[in-house]
């Protein structure tokens, strides 16, 4: 390879790197910041402004801050509820749409696609009222332990809303996954007298395990980092999520304390990064799974 060829094949890489700089810089900053007293730009400094000042002090929030564990539990609960809800309901509906013929099937399929494209965020105002109404239902409205019920100002309510808004994508993906499973085992089982439910549980679901894993990871990450819906529908500080908590921290601190807040940020980011590093193929498959844009 001549130096000219080498140069021209390096150009795309150079260009790409330049374009990707904001992303790289942003994450670099937050990592450096959590371990510094303060940062001047990307450079860690100590209190006097000299370079250095590396510290683990920022992580003291883990034991000093009374709220953080509460908030973490809430967020974890929300993410788990969301993931289980989306997986189970999408898997059920996806199976029926893929394998059972019933009146209205085509309408549901078309409806799912339209709903997926529809901006659900515009409905928040109306959903607010719906949640308030649900909150009035005895017991499951507001009285359940841990998740607090399914009404307004509860984790259960927020989870239910988020499950519903993710269903179009989930159902569509699940249907796609089921479509790819061969008919043979299923037909054999049905001929031998298996009920649909059993076929679904014992044959179909295991066959699409990678798909389920991908959707589970993707949904969990979404639930873990959710801000708008928990923020809008939960007013009780005790029940808020890490995102809402982190945002409120930024509201009343001067920029100097950014390193403290950055530590909380990384704390929230760690699970996401772990999933991202180890399950990349699954995540990418979700994004491309429904849109194999061909010519």
């Amino acid at each position, binding site marked *: 390879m001549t130096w000219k060829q080498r140069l021209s094949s390096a150009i795309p*890489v150079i260009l*790409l790197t330049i374009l990707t700089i*904001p992303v790289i810089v*942003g994450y670099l900053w*937050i990592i450096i910041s959590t371990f510094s007293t303060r*940062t001047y*730009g*990307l450079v860690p400094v100590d209190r006097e402004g000299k370079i250095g000042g590396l510290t683990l002090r920022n992580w003291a929030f883990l034991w000093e801050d009374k709220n953080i564990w509460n908030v973490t539990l809430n967020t974890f609960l929300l993410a788990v509820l969301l993931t289980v809800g989306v997986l189970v*309901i*999408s898997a*059920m*509906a996806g199976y029926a749409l893929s394998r*059972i*013929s*019933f009146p209205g099937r085509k309408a*549901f399929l*078309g409806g799912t*696609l*339209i709903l997926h*494209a*529809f*901006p659900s965020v515009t*409905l928040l*105002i*109306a959903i607010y009222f*719906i949640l308030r109404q649900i909150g009035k239902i005895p017991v499951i409205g507001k009285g359940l332990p841990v998740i607090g019920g399914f009404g307004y100002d509860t984790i259960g309510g927020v989870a*239910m809303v988020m499950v*519903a*808004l993710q269903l*179009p994508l989930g159902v569509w*993906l699940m249907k796609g*996954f089921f*479509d790819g499973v061969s008919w043979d085992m299923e037909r054999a089982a049905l001929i031998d007298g298996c*009920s*649909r439910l059993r076929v679904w549980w014992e044959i179909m679901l295991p066959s699409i395990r990678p798909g389920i894993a991908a959707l589970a990871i993707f949904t969990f990450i979404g639930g873990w*980092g959710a*801000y708008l819906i928990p923020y809008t529908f939960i007013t009780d500080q005790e029940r808020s999520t*890490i*995102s809402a908590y*982190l*945002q409120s921290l*930024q509201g009343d601190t001067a920029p*100097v304390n950014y390193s403290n807040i950055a530590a909380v940020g990384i704390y*929230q*980011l760690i699970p*996401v990064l772990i999933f*991202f590093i180890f399950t*990349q*193929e699954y*995540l*990418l*498959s979700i*994004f491309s*799974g*429904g*849109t*194999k*844009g*061909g*010519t």
Partner: protein
Amino acid sequence: MARSTSHAGSPTGTRTTFVDVLRRMSAPLLFMSPAVILTGVFFFAPVVILFRISLTDMSSVTGLKNYSMIGWQNYRTILTHPNTLPILWTTVRYMIFTLIFFNVGMALVVALLSTHIPRRAGFIYRALWLLPRLTPSVVYIMMWKFIGADTPYGILNRHVLEPLGLPTANLVSTEPFLFVVLTNGFIGASFGMIVFTSAIESIPRDYMIAALVDGCTMWQRIRYVILPMISWPLLFVTTYQTLSLLTSFEQILLLTDGAGGTEVWALWAYHRALSNYYGNFQWGFGAALAMILVAIGIVMSIIYMRFFRFGALVQEAKIEAL
């Protein structure tokens, strides 16, 4: 004998009774009901409810009981409201800039670049571009706030503006619109990037190689072979992201909360109805604002599905790494 699940009438050959229909429907009913119920309650019911509220003057002044139906009054107010045109213009500008430079522009550039370098490296860059979308929004915006923060803390001020001797300031406050476009852009670009990469990689290798053999330079091949062959995904991403941008406001809420001329229509509706913006919740007026977006959303969603035959774009989902 197997319990038949076929649809050729009941097994004994007599007339199908209601019980037979029930039995046949029991499986699909069981499987479909949770999804149907949830989408009914949280997609369809809200549209109706939103419309109804938009015809009232409900606010925290009237409370939830003492409101009155005022017909199209809210909509008429919107038409004559002093904020309407500026906010509309901000929304349109935001959509156009983010779309052209990032959601389509950068997406295309990154897709093209990452498919012209070794595969492994391509994965890594595309994965990096996916990271903003996966990051919790609050953390992501916090990064950007710090990128633009004032000296000596902010990255841009400290490492770029200062060394060049240029005046420094909190860039998020001085250039809010720019940062709104940037923050949304880096998230938005990842969708188009994946669609375009898929599309580029499904172009038959023969065309790509033939073009080079026939003496095309890289640029000519991009312009005359690749771009025409991905025109359909290009159009799709453009229109899909248009709707997406029209209604997205979470990042703007977090970054500037609408200050500095960055209030977009969706944020205006949210502020009016759900945050104590004007000292009270104006549900009726906010609902009217939102209803306009809902109407646009419904129309555009239906157009996509028919015009783009989205169903045709969806092929069997296979789990494979990009």
